[in-house]
């Protein structure tokens, strides 16, 4: 790897890291604002114009709060839990292609940290690892509610991972590759995968809700039953890490859904735009389009949160095992038949 490419990669890593942190910060603000609009309220509007500085105020509050480590907790693991949660949330974005190749000077650079040829499985692995942060934190707190939250998180994540994997398999049968870069490139113009796998997408997004622990599947932190769920004992920035991890997860899963199903950086008429703007501006427009899609998904996550009540735990398990998994298998069979007979 030559130095030029290395520098671009490093810059990209830092930029993506910063972007995901900033987006996570402002997701908290957006969540509160959007919740307010859905409930005919105003939302935070004190810190700065229209409350735009609210995340900074929240962050300062988080840092200044007293940090409590329960006496009977397993202290090392108590600290490892939130760190692991935010780490697994952050590394998922490494394989997502953020745009087309961009031309700097006379060279083409990928807007992707790394293109491993099992990229999709990598994301899947990172997602499946995400539950460790919750489980370790919940167990280390030495608290019944935390432990129950951790157990719920574990069984929920394992159950929905299966359905998620099966829905991805149907997608793979269509795309014939595991590399996210190629999947993104295949969806040129308006050939988005959602048109070929609408049913798989619905399964995927339901599983994504479960994997990111968002309402209606936020049973691990269900405050009506479990006080605070797995983060009952957490305070200060360690709690902040858990909350942050949830929002980063939301951002990354939005990016994955946009990349896999909604055409990544592609948009109808992109060739015409590329012809008129040149090789530097056009990929950037594509990146903007990708981010617009991601923001739409984040909005959708919040929209659903403030609309749909939480599932009961047995309903959640029923939906996962008796609903989504058979449907995902049916989807695979249907896709197979379609490929065999119509392609």
């Amino acid at each position: 790897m030559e130095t030029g490419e290395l520098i671009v990669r490093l810059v990209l890593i830092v930029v993506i890291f910063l972007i995901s942190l900033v987006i996570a910060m402002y997701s908290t603000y957006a969540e509160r604002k959007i919740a307010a609009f859905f409930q005919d309220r105003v939302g935070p509007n004190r810190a700065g114009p229209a409350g735009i500085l609210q995340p900074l105020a929240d962050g300062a509050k988080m840092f200044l709060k007293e940090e409590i480590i329960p006496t009977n907790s397993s202290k090392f693991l108590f600290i490892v839990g939130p760190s692991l949660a935010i780490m697994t949330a952050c590394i998922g974005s490494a394989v997502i292609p953020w745009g087309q190749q961009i031309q700097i000077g006379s060279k083409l650079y990928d807007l992707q940290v790394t293109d491993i040829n099992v990229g999709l499985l990598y994301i899947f692995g990172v997602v499946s690892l995400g539950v460790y942060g919750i489980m370790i934190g919940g167990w280390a707190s030495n608290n019944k509610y935390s432990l129950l939250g951790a157990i719920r998180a574990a069984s929920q994540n394992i159950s929905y991972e299966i359905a998620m994997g099966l829905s991805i398999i149907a997608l793979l049968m269509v795309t014939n590759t595991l590399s996210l870069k190629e999947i993104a490139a295949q969806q040129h113009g308006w050939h988005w995968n959602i048109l070929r796998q609408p049913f798989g997408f619905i399964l995927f997004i339901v599983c994504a809700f479960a994997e990111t622990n968002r309402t209606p599947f936020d049973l691990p932190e269900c405050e009506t039953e479990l006080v605070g769920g797995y983060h009952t004992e957490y305070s200060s920035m360690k709690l902040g890490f858990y909350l942050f991890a949830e929002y980063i997860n939301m951002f990354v899963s939005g990016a994955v859904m946009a990349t896999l199903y909604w055409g990544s950086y592609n948009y109808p008429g992109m060739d015409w735009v590329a012809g008129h703007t040149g090789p530097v501006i056009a990929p950037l427009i594509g990146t903007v389009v990708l981010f617009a899609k991601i923001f739409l998904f984040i909005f959708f996550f919040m929209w659903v949160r403030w609309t749909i009540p939480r599932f009961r735990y047995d309903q959640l398990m029923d939906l996962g095992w008796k609903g989504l998994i058979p449907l995902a298998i049916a989807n695979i069979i249907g896709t197979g038949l379609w490929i065999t007979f119509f392609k």
Partner: protein
Amino acid sequence: MSIFYFIAFLSILFAVLVISAKNPVHSILYLVLTFFTFTIQYILLNAQFVAIVNFIVYMGAILVLFLYTLMLINLNKNSEPMKTNLVKIAAVLGGGCLLVVVVAALKATGASDPVLFKDPNLGLVKNLGKVLFDEFLLPFEISSLLLLSAMVGAVLLATKDTKTA
């Protein structure tokens, strides 16, 4: 090259910690770390697909299941009653003997060629898929049957018996 030895050292260290940790939850977490070092070994061997499947299946599913079961059972007694020291020493001796035999056999063969990547694309999905669905199609199908029967068996075992309970 030195990466291999470092990672190998870590694997052995964590493996020893797995069997020596008093608290079973700590054992599992050390096992996670051990498997993570294995994943790195696979990547060093350029067996990308095996690496990622090891990552997903072992770390993401099997060990979470272990952790889940352990938390479900929730043994509040901090440590299980350990076996007596005599048994422990005997066990270590037995394991050591096994190791010595294997190493001796290895010595007898005397082969120590370096591992060369004859085919750099060996561990990639395309290559493995072709072998798996061509040569090993029947074992593959049979393993799916195995998984299905295991699933049925697990559900049957874990369901509470309504007659006796």
